[in-house]
């Protein structure tokens, strides 16, 4: 191990007299640069796996309900029937088809996630950018508010809020939005603060651009990767938290969603009678969707932070370059030519 480490150290410089030309020339139009980032993301195996899972579940959520054989709210067979040819995932404690419940449940869970993600991201952008750009007392006020929302334990607050509100789809959306915006706001605030010191912002100020324009046209496009990552994280949070609230019976128990499926499974003591098939599909679906979003976020992290890139991936970026990546512990190091 340590011998290997010493070799790494001695070669931890770019051994080349001519600079390695980057694949993307410095001055490109924005659309082309964006395509480059998307391309990088698609080359990333983690992102590809995540995207495949999410696309699959989006299809299930928006097309699936038209294709299922049974109405998920109808009693169609005996109770707690094990999976069979008729009912692929068996039936639940009142004789409803679990497969239909899982497919139709995807719609409620995903749409809640996507809506809450949008609301939370917009609030986060508004609060975070305002605080980071204006600074001074506005920043003090908004940061304190953000940090308070962050530090008050989320789930207990969610439970208390949901207990007071009448149960329903929009109550849940409201509660999740109120509690979920702070994380994005905090990250965007610090990013705005560092971007506002950059020369292109100074030149926009000199050119006489207004604050609004600078924030929306100059700063915001430069932190899109953080906004997107924040959105995906928020969607993830919303899907998990909605399912959690519903599992506690704080949603609208008559609607079909993954959380409600688990709530009814628990209420009908599915595990006591050994009906594992009522719990596996919805639970695994929640986990897989969360896994998919996390993998995409993980990949965004790797693409935007070269230090985290795996060796293989860095090698891929450099494909066609006369350079080679040496195994090293720090920032990936490019070495021209073959290993001696």
């Amino acid at each position, binding site marked *: *191990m*340590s011998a290997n*480490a*010493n070799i790494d*150290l001695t070669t*931890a410089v770019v051994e080349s007299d001519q600079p390695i030309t980057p694949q993307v020339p410095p001055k490109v139009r924005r659309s082309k640069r964006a395509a480059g980032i998307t391309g990088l993301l698609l080359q990333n195996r*983690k992102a590809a*796996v995540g995207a495949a899972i999410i696309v699959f579940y989006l299809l299930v959520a928006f097309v699936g309900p038209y294709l299922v054989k049974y109405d998920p709210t109808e009693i169609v067979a005996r109770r707690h029937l094990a999976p069979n040819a008729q009912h692929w995932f068996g039936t639940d404690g009142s004789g409803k088809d679990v497969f239909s419940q899982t497919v139709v449940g995807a719609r409620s869970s995903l749409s809640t996630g996507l809506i809450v993600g949008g609301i939370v991201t917009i609030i986060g952008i508004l609060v975070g950018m305002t605080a980071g750009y204006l600074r001074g007392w506005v920043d003090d006020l908004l940061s*304190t508010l953000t*940090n*308070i929302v*962050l*530090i*008050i*334990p*989320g*789930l*207990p*607050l969610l*439970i*208390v*809020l949901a*207990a*007071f*509100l*009448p149960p329903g789809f929009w109550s849940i959306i409201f509660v999740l939005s109120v509690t979920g915006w702070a994380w994005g706001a905090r990250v965007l605030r610090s990013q705005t603060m560092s971007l506002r010191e950059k020369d292109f912002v100074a030149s926009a100020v000199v050119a006489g651009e207004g604050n609004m324009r600078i924030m929306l046209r100059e700063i915001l496009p430069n932190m899109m990767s953080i906004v997107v990552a924040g959105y995906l994280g928020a969607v993830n949070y919303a899907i*998990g938290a909605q*399912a*959690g609230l519903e*599992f*506690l*019976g*704080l949603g609208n128990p008559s609607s079909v969603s993954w959380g409600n499926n*688990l709530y009814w499974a*628990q209420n009908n003591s599915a*595990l*006591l009678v*050994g009906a*594992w098939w009522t*719990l596996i599909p919805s*639970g695994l679906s*929640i*986990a*897989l969707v*969360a*896994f998919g979003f*996390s*993998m995409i976020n*993980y990949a965004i*992290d790797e693409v935007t932070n070269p*230090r*985290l890139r*795996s*060796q*293989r991936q860095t090698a891929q970026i450099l494909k066609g370059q006369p350079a080679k990546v040496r*195994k*090293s*512990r*720090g*920032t990936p190091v490019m070495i021209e030519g073959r290993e001696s």
Partner: protein
Amino acid sequence: MSYILKRVVFYLIAAWASITLNFFLPRMMPGDPGSVLLAKLRGQGDIRPEVIDAMMKAYGVSDDPLIFQYFDYMRNILTGEFGVSTSWFPAPVTEVIRTGFIWTVILIGTALIISFAIGSILGVIGAWKRGSWMDNVTPPVFVFLGSLPYFWIAPMLLFAFAFHFQWFPPRHAYNTDLSPTFSWAYISSVIGHMILPVISVVIVSVGGWLLGMRNTMIAILSEDYVTMAEAKGLSSRRVMFGYGARNALLPTLTSFGMSLGFILGGSLFTEMIFAYPGLGYLLINSVRGLDYPLMQGLFMMITFAVLLANLIVDLLYVRLDPRIRKS
């Protein structure tokens, strides 16, 4: 010193905000929550007049102006007067909370320490052996485990190891036949009851520590002082733990405080599923039993506990990082 002062002021503001939130929540809701709740409670069967009295007091069914009610409420909270629990009547809310608090601290404390230790060590090793098969495989696996909902993994473990194999007890924090004394029988029963809940929390939360530690460690390992340490010919073990991990621990410590609230939230489900008599179990039962004074008291106590834990982390941080002390 001024850093600590700033943090204390912030925690005080946060505590005030959560008390205020707690006061206005039931009063802001559409309609008259006091009478709605009373109607709901009456619907549950016979109800004692003292319970009604407690509810009236807690929900502002009074003729005083709002501002007087607010100051009354503040004074009550600050003197530890949280009202009377309606489902454990006539026990005061504080007494119900006290027993739950101990169990949650034991459960979450154990789970947090185990998960932090395993995650950090795996993260350090992953960062040290960049690109090895272990480093390629562990992050996705733990991201997946972290995606499993608490309220799903816990029933699964319960089903497999408590019902099917019957290796572990299915519910509660100790064998109720035993009296709580410092005897081996009692302590071993507490540990036995803790294993499954702790495992379920650890499985879900370990990935966060792993990824956080790995990413900070990767950044630290490219610092000059690590290169220097290696050039001096120190053993890789010493470089890894003494130079890398030691410095990577600091940023992780900050997220320790932050994630406490998160893990506490997740443990609500764990406690509920294993009927573990901690704060989460009480909270969920209070919601189901419409015991609003207990519910709000629990929310207050959980918030205060998280604030206090964060303050302790801040104090530790000042002890550990001289750069903060100087500025």
